[in-house]
């Protein structure tokens, strides 16, 4: 059986039998894969703490062990992203990011940009904790890498530049829409400045998370836009989303009180 190896990030794991573990990971070389780690919970030598959630590791595996699973041989830990363990808000957003990648990417399709994006995102959360900016940038860049980025700067119907005080947005309709082209019933109305900000954010390197600050209005409107895109592509709701919304709401309350 062919031996494979790659840098990878552990997205999710499931304990199986007494000591085994089924692990979803996103590898630099082959994208999303699922593996069976025999005796992983007992073997400190082969895996140690390297199969913990969000761990950045060097993994070795051989072809499909059974069904869709590869057989994991061993793992070497590079970065545990231990800051995520100290902050439940960061845990919530990191879980959401990993679940989103698992839900939106196809198995065994190489996409190094998504690997680098996820690695930078987890590294940022580990240092800086939960923030609405990090969530927005991650979602936006992930959609862009997957080819789901809509029209932000031009009307997706008539192709004229978006301007004025308000425009409409419809992920289903291709993105931003000028008020002349937008159906009257379309509820999502945003400032063209918000869409412009989203468009400009896509020009920045995918691994850059530090130094972004957005106004309350931009965060709120951009959140609505990204959720509209997400609804188009998700086949089931994410388990981590409501947990993360609770954490973000709590953080916003604390910020408002201060």
């Amino acid at each position, binding site marked *: 059986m062919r031996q494979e190896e790659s840098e990878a990030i552990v997205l*999710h794991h499931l304990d199986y*039998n*007494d000591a085994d573990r089924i692990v979803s990971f996103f590898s630099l070389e082959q994208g999303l894969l699922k593996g069976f780690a025999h005796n992983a919970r007992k073997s*400190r*030598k082969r895996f*140690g*703490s*390297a199969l*913990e*959630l*969000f761990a950045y590791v060097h993994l070795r595996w051989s072809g499909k062990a059974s069904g869709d699973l590869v057989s994991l041989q061993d793992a070497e*830990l590079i970065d*545990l992203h*231990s800051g*995520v*363990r*100290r*902050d*439940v808000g960061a*845990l*919530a957003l990191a*879980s*959401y990011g*990993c*679940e989103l990648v698992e839900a939106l990417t196809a198995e065994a399709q190489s996409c190094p940009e998504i690997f680098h994006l996820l690695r930078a995102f987890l590294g940022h959360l580990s240092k800086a904790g939960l923030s609405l900016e990090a969530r927005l940038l991650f979602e936006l860049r992930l959609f862009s890498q997957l080819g789901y980025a809509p029209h932000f700067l031009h009307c997706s119907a008539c192709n004229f530049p978006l301007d004025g005080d308000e425009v409409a947005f419809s992920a289903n309709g291709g993105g931003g829409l000028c008020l002349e082209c937008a159906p009257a019933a379309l509820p999502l109305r945003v400032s063209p400045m918000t869409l412009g900000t989203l468009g400009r954010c896509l020009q920045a390197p995918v691994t850059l998370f530090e130094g972004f600050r957005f106004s309350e209005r931009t965060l709120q409107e951009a959140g609505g836009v990204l959720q509209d895109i997400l609804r188009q592509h998700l086949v089931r709701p994410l*388990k*981590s989303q*409501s*947990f*993360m919304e*609770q954490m973000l709401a709590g953080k916003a309350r604390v910020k408002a009180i201060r």
Partner: protein
Amino acid sequence: MLDWKIHPSFSRLVFELGKLPGIGKKTATRLALFILRQSSGDAESLAAAIREVKERTRFCSICFHYTEQDPCQLCTDPARDSEYLCVVQEPQDLLVVERSRSFRGRYHILHGALSPLDGIGPEQLKIAELMIRLEQGSVREVLLATNFSVEGEATAHYLAGLIRPLGIRVSRLAHGIPLGSDLEYVDEATVNRAVEGRQFLTE
């Protein structure tokens, strides 16, 4: 192998035993054959024991450990120090701490850890009950003995944030190299934590 069409009761027993943790179909079949070989009295006694434990056991209304009398013995034992409270994830974790004979305070079982990927938030755990208990009681120190997984550690930090404003001291289990083990076989993350949490030797 017995044919399930001919022996549906045997197949049912294998199916039920196969639901137990760590029991696959082969082991379930072996256990079922063992039960079949036992006398009717022994088999009846096993069935009665399972029935009885399910009927009589419930959660203690204070610590949420399994008990046949509410409150449980651990919560009513006058020899235990009520100023110290150990918070664990699962009932089996309480048994591990008790086996160590190192803690003589009282316990609180959360019945899980915060896990966004499994949809487990604070409402699904016995966290509200813990906070009510701390606000009403005389606890001076809470020892957080949740697991050292991502979820267990994040839960410990979350609880510490809730408990500290009550003026109660919060401690966490120490972690590092297991007793009796060789350093060369310990993983990098554990060695890293052990170095971070090193202690000075005093005379």
